[in-house]
């Protein structure tokens, strides 16, 4: 081990002993160089040290490893789980998910309790907790964080409709909360009220909907709905995106492309955890030591560091080192080293001895869809061609070898399932026919032959993808499968795109007949994937397939205002079947994520749905004071 690798306080005399002038000049240069080297982190804490700062040696630090970092820390731009990892830990949201319950269950967070909902399901009255303060920051008078009020929530949601914000979350509430579009059209003046979103008093919010929105509370768990103080937005302007000022369990200390450092917010409200209310299941979670946090108030660590490590080898090496990141989502190339068996997933003994771990399905899926706006594959003015196009799509779906895809690219531990209702949502039907995910080369050939398709008249299929080796391999595998059903390889053409932004543009502008993508759930409700095929969401919306089925659309509209019920589930499953029957998509696989963390970390890590909501409850055991706070 290199001396000085661990941060230790250094006496001033050691840095500046008596030396002759030349040596002193060298020492000055060395010191300047060191300052240059160390002056890197963007220090976002500008209000001086908090009252009680533990020394580095006694600090409880948890280092989390993520495969990407957020591009912005502004909740209004928290479009992915990476941004959410920060947003919901630096800021407060009205609701949250229970720490340990699976499937995911909502719970009040900053809300003082469940909302009062009118009989017509259109009006929500939400009371928020009193005495919650933002962290101290120069944005406030005298640098002292003020109390968070209902008006702050109203302001934070309205920001999504204010063009000055460059927000990305408006889609959650547009057309749902009354008056927001009108407010925007009238100039997005924050001094003016929006009809459906008002603060009735200092601690009461009223939300008026245009139609029932069963997922509303789910949207209020997300980073998008995190509550920001208006003063900070005004004070930092565009740079608010790198200067978070929230009331969450942690406050951001520094942030760069490699990591974010967040210290415990000393002002965070004291709310003892009841692990049983959080959904604790001793049978499946008992080994992780979670009882230790029972009755204590989070956060339990002094410092949270999230390291953004794109390269899987570096991520794994850092985790395995023992004194660096303490959590990793196991990369596919390490699965052989980690797993003893894949079905069911079990760990090798040496891994179980060193780490805690579990394998869980992602809240999302990977699928491919035909863009039906292409007359070669989809809708066609000629009904006969349209019928033949459907047969062509069905044949391609039959040619697809999901088990092989799973084995080649998802470590063989993904869950292949039919349709677009993913396994982690309650509406998933495990007994559904698996015909659409079962390879049938003979059936595919018959379909093509019976419908007049041959090597000469099959249309060119342009396979757009980002230019990575992995995607190229996926394309080659797909092309080989199509060759087996008689699709000439030269008619399956690769179109590489340099960046994800470029291919996103191609999808949104409907430039590709074949869309290959992954979708992460925004909330644990099948509506979130069913809307991917809802007609009005066609390009540039999320229905990249441009599937337009009046029956589907009518049923979707009917279901989307219904509360969870067997009736709604039945409709969801009919919608799912329609997508399968119309051969719109090759779907799908839900990847299994294997989580490992060090044994001194008391946690149940999770990165699904909102992402990072467990971080508030993480504890670390081996610190000199025994880990008790």
């Amino acid at each position, binding site marked *: 081990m290199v001396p000085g690798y661990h941060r230790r306080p250094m006496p001033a005399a050691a840095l500046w002993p008596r030396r002759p002038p030349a040596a002193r000049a060298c020492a000055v240069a060395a010191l300047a160089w060191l300052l240059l080297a160390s002056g890197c982190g963007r220090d976002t804490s500008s209000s001086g040290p908090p009252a009680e700062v533990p020394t580095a040696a006694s600090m409880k630090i948890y280092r989390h490893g993520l495969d990407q970092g957020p591009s912005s820390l502004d909740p209004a731009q928290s479009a992915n789980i990476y941004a959410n990892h920060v947003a919901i830990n630096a800021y407060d949201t009205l609701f949250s998910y229970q720490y340990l319950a699976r499937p995911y269950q909502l719970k009040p967070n900053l809300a003082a309790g469940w909302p009062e909902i009118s009989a017509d399901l259109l009006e929500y009255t939400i009371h928020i907790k009193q005495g919650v303060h933002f962290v101290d920051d120069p944005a406030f008078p005298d640098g002292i964080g003020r109390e968070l009020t209902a008006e702050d929530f109203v302001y934070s949601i309205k920001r999504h409709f204010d063009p000055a914000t460059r927000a990305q979350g408006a889609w959650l509430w547009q057309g749902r909360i009354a008056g927001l579009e009108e407010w925007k059209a009238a100039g997005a003046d924050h001094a003016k009220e929006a009809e459906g979103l008002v603060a009735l008093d200092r601690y009461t919010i009223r939300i008026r909907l245009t139609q029932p929105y069963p997922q509303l509370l789910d949207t209020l768990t997300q980073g998008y709905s995190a509550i920001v103080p208006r003063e900070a937005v005004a004070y930092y302007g565009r740079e608010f995106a790198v200067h978070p000022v929230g009331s969450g369990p942690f406050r951001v200390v520094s942030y760069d492309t490699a990591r974010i450092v967040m210290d415990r917010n000393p002002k965070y409200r004291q709310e003892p955890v009841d692990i049983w209310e959080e959904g604790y299941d001793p049978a499946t979670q008992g080994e992780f030591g979670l009882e230790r946090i029972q009755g204590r108030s989070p956060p339990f660590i002094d410092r949270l560091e999230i390291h953004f490590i794109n390269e899987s080898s570096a991520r794994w*090496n850092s985790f395995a080192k023992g004194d660096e990141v303490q959590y990793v989502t196991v990369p596919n190339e390490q699965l052989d080293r980690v797993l003893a068996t894949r079905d069911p997933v079990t760990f090798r003994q040496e891994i179980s001895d060193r780490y805690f771990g579990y394998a869980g399905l992602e809240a999302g899926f990977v699928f491919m869809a035909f863009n039906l706006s292409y007359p070669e594959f989809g809708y066609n003015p000629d009904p006969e061609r349209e019928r033949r196009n459907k047969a062509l799509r069905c044949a391609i779906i039959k040619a697809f070898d999901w088990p092989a895809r799973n084995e080649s690219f998802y470590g063989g531990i993904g869950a292949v399932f039919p349709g677009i209702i993913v396994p982690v949502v309650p509406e998933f039907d495990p007994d559904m026919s698996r015909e659409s995910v079962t390879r049938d080369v003979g059936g595919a050939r018959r379909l093509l032959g019976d419908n007049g398709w041959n090597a000469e008249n099959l249309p060119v299929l342009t396979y757009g993808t980002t230019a990575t080796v992995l995607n190229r391999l996926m394309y080659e595998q797909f092309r080989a499968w199509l060759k087996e059903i008689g699709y000439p390889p030269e008619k399956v053409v690769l179109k590489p795109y340099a960046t994800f932004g470029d291919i996103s543009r191609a999808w949104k502008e409907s430039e590709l007949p074949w869309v290959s993508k992954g979708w992460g759930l925004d909330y644990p409700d099948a509506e979130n994937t069913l809307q991917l095929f809802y007609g009005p969401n066609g390009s540039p919306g999320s229905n990249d397939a441009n599937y337009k089925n009046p029956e589907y659309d009518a049923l979707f509209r009917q279901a989307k205002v219904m509360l969870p019920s067997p009736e709604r589930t039945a409709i969801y499953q009919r919608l799912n079947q329609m997508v399968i029957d119309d051969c719109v998509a090759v779907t799908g696989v839900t990847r299994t994520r294997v989580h490992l963390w060090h044994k001194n970390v008391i946690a149940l890590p999770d990165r699904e749905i909102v992402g990072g909501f467990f971080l508030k409850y993480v504890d670390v055991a081996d610190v000199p004071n025994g880990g008790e706070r």
Partner: protein
Amino acid sequence: MELLQYTIRKLLAGIPLILGVTFVSFLLMVYFGPDQTYQLIGKNPTPEQIAEVRAQLGYDKPFVVRYADYLRELGTLDFGFSDSTGEKVSVLLGRTIPVSLALITPGFILGNLVALMLALIAAHHRSGWVDKMIMGLSVVGMSISFLIVVIAFQIVFSSSYGLGLFPVRGWNVHSPGDYFAYVAVPTMATVFVALGYNTRFYRSVIVEELTRDHVRTARAFGVPPARLLYRNVLKNCMIPIITRIVFSIPLIVISGALIIETYFGIPGVGKVTFEAITSGDQPVLKAVVGLTALLFVLAQLVTDILYRAVDPRVSLK
């Protein structure tokens, strides 16, 4: 006075270069670079929202107007805010360039000094086994991909599967010990690869010099080999050596070392530049391209002045 006049003349002559580089780069950015629109809009956007974002990014303005804006930004060194992170570009570069400098400089210096030493030894023993061994190792250094070197060095020196002597990744520098720990493996990797290219280049320059008449004469006069190499050979080789070293500096300052920064988790300008390229963050890209062009002009100036310093026959006129 002569130097000042020369400096002014050179800087003025650099303006067309800067204009040319920035124009071509901006053309590529605008017409072939990634479009940030779809990374900045939410799900299910309406055409109006897309148009709104495009307007905010300035994509709706004519090219000429955008280029004129760029030149104004370059003139004032105010490139606005990053489209991705919202951070002020000057702050972003001010924060990351020093880190890249601190990271790369030891490897850069060692890579050149050691290569120069090895090149002198190899040239002195030209065609002997020492020369062949040094050149063989140089070829190894040149042949192995930098990516492989970085991964291998990280495993060997840092990971728990190897020696575990240094941190795998990070940049938490608070003392000379920290600095040494974090910079050691990246420096070794940089030197390993740089030695290959540099040693071969410097050897060929030195070998050419060794064949000159003045060297033969010095040898005939019995000048000891070490003195001969230093005084009669190395000093006369300085012009190509300076050219190579000085022109590498702008790339180090601005481009940083992407692979090293990415694998070792170091928040330098290389990673920022790469992310700006892949995401199409034009304010950052414009700053990086403009500053690189500017630094090349300065490098050219410094090189010319150094030519004069090492060889008084060179005229600044």
